[in-house]
């Protein structure tokens, strides 16, 4: 294994989310992949900052896996960002602890991709909405990869959900096994495309 992958998962109502249960079920329990369920660990929002920092240091690829709530992430993940990415550690003078790690987001949205277009229902693209996350990652001297997005989560048929989660599984495998060419991957809008391509190849 080349990269150690940390999935920071945040879903306040995980048990009711079809799509996220299916996605998470694809996370292999094996060395090199850590599934870190924030709402299960910190139901009182009392994040153990030191433990989180240690966890970050022990991984190379960090995935923020969450539903896309109000064009952003659930509150606990924001709390996590607020608390863990400390000045002088993650950013600012001497804040080099996370340098050169790779971060990406795995999202589920209710709306279809067509809604996230200029002139679409939501008026902005997903990538535009994710700008604060992208910049947070860059400020911490890390590399931001395009997201893996499952659109229209409520409308997906069981077969489609299975297909999406299979892609997620292969994303995890690829992230783990391949040397990541950040510049090349950054050209994709979504990493879903990359996975489809590599699968074809």
């Amino acid at each position: 294994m080349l990269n150690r992958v940390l999935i920071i998962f945040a879903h306040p109502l995980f048990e009711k989310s079809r799509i996220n249960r299916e996605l998470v079920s694809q996370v292999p329990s094996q060395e090199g992949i850590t599934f870190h369920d924030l709402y299960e660990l910190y139901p009182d929002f009392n994040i153990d900052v030191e433990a989180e920092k240690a966890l970050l240091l022990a991984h190379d690829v960090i995935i923020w896996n969450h539903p896309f709530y109000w064009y952003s992430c659930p509150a606990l993940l924001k709390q996590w960002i607020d608390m863990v990415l400390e000045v002088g550690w993650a950013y600012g003078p001497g804040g080099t602890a996370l340098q050169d790690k790779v971060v990406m987001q795995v999202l589920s949205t209710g709306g279809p991709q067509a809604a996230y277009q200029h002139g679409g229902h939501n008026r902005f693209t997903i990538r535009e909405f994710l700008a604060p996350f992208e910049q947070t990652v860059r400020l911490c001297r890390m590399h931001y990869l395009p997201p893996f997005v499952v659109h229209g989560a409520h409308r997906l048929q069981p077969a489609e959900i299975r297909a999406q989660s299979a892609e997620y599984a292969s994303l995890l495998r690829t992230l783990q096994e391949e040397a990541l060419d950040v510049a090349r991957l950054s050209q994709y809008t979504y990493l879903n495309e990359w996975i489809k391509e590599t699968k074809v190849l």
Partner: protein
Amino acid sequence: MNGDFLAQALVYLAAAVFCVPIAKKIGMSSVLGYLLSGIVIGPYALGFIGQEGQDIMHVAEFGVVMMLFLIGLELEPAAFWQMRRSIVGFGTAQLAGTTLLLLALFMALGWSLTMALAVALALSMSSTAIVLQTLKEKGLSNTIAGKSSFSVLLFQDIAVIPILAILPLLATTAVLPHESGHHSLIDDQPGWIQTILVIGAVGAIYAVGNYAVVPLLRLVAKTGLREMFTASSLLLVVAVAFLMQQVGLSPALGSFVAGMVLASSEFRHELESDIEPFKGLLLGLFFIGVGASINFQLLAEAPSQIAMLVSLIIGIKLLVLLSIGKIFKLKHDQNFLFALGLSQVGEFAFVLFSFSSQLQILDSDWTGKLTAITAISMMTTPVLLLINERFIAPYFGTKEAVEEKAADSIEEHHRVIIAGFGHFGSTIGRLLRANGVEATILDNNSDQVELLRKMGFKVYYGDATRLDLLKAAGAGEATLFIAAIDSPEINKELIHTLTKHFPGLKVLARARNRFDAYELMEMGITNIYRETLYTAVHLAVDALSQLGFRKYSATRQGQKFIQYDERGLTKLASSRHDLSEYIMTARQQIEYQEKLLHDDLMQNFSSEDHSWDGTYVRDNLLQADEQPLTPSDVSARKE
């Protein structure tokens, strides 16, 4: 004299210290331990003490007086008034029923009416010392059986007064008052003055208790001398007992009234903790005296006669008590506890026998035999209760369980078991139930059990520390066991049984405080919930908020405090081993608290959350001004 005293004290204390822990270890009550140690050091075994066991008993009877004072302290007059019907009902039924049956028995044996009546009255008494001590030790004082037993005992205490008055009337020979041993100041007065004096004395206790004792205690408390307070407490009890003896009332009864008067005063707990050890020691001494005074020689001479009488007397008492329990609709388990508990002959019988013997109603041979019978009957109670606990009560508990299973055999065992369904346990049960999780509940309060069954909870009545009950409740198959019994001691006992017999079962344990938590940790429990932590932190957070702290900051401090405290607990658990072996005194606990508070200040657990702290962030970023850091900078560095 001095050396003699020391030698005696040595014998008594050593006997108690050796026998009682052994008795407790093998599951007997301390009463039996004391009785056995009395026999061991008595004239018929090791012979360390001779016949003075009797005298010791008379001194030690004062323990009973103290016990009733303590009981009075726990019972406010209003609560007592509520019990009046139960006292009269249970009391008359027991006394009349037992006396009549025993009278019939003795008449059938060909005794004279006088002797038969005097002995029947004496034998109908039960032992306050044994019953209340045992009930308290087993934590059963507040059960229906416990309260009913108390009613009977209290009525007997009151009844002693008329009985002592009747006995001389039965006597064929006149006795001079001063020979009776119950000479009181008012004996020579005409009856109506006596009545007035008796009422006056009780009234005096009430008035003096309310208007003189409390202010006096306040004064003493101000001196700050602990031993002065202890002395005052003792003085109070002794004075009341003395006064009562002077007017011919039972000292125990008087001190009970005095206790009740002081129950609502602010000194209630102080008095309790001051008198408690004296009571305990004196009662222990009393039981040792009983053990030592059993005349084994008499036993050896007529073993079958004594054995027959003991079993007949206990049998009759049991019969009467069981019928009363039935009439008053006690549940089977409560009824057995009630009847077996009160089945012995009480310490008042010793007094009544010696009095009767002075009145020449009884000859010395029978006095000796009856005294021995009384003492032996006292020995049987702890054994009977033990048998009840092991063999009879489980039968009711498991029988109910079996019935329920038969009625609903498809139903599987619940995944969760809750032991103890008081305020703590029921809160847990309600929250689980609101989320569709049904739990099997164990509780030893039969009223509670009935209510819960009506509400559709699956409840097993009984002592949760019993292995068979745990098995019946499905502890072998359950996922979670919630140990939420009110008494930390019983809870620990339960957890001990659980960890021993169901090692795979996950236990969530209630603990009263950190000292309980330490013990639970030593048993290997990791999920420990201290009653005194979360509520207190919650309160402190609100206090901080009331003082102007932002609620969220205060809440975070509270969260951190809990975290810090729980980590500290684990750390300290290992280092406190030297303390765990013996009971922590109040002083040690205070020192410990001091250390904790000191550590909090030093360790500064409450370091700021700098994530949102603008000043902190600014200070850090200002350093960067010399080397401005922009995103382009970052990418430049990467290249």
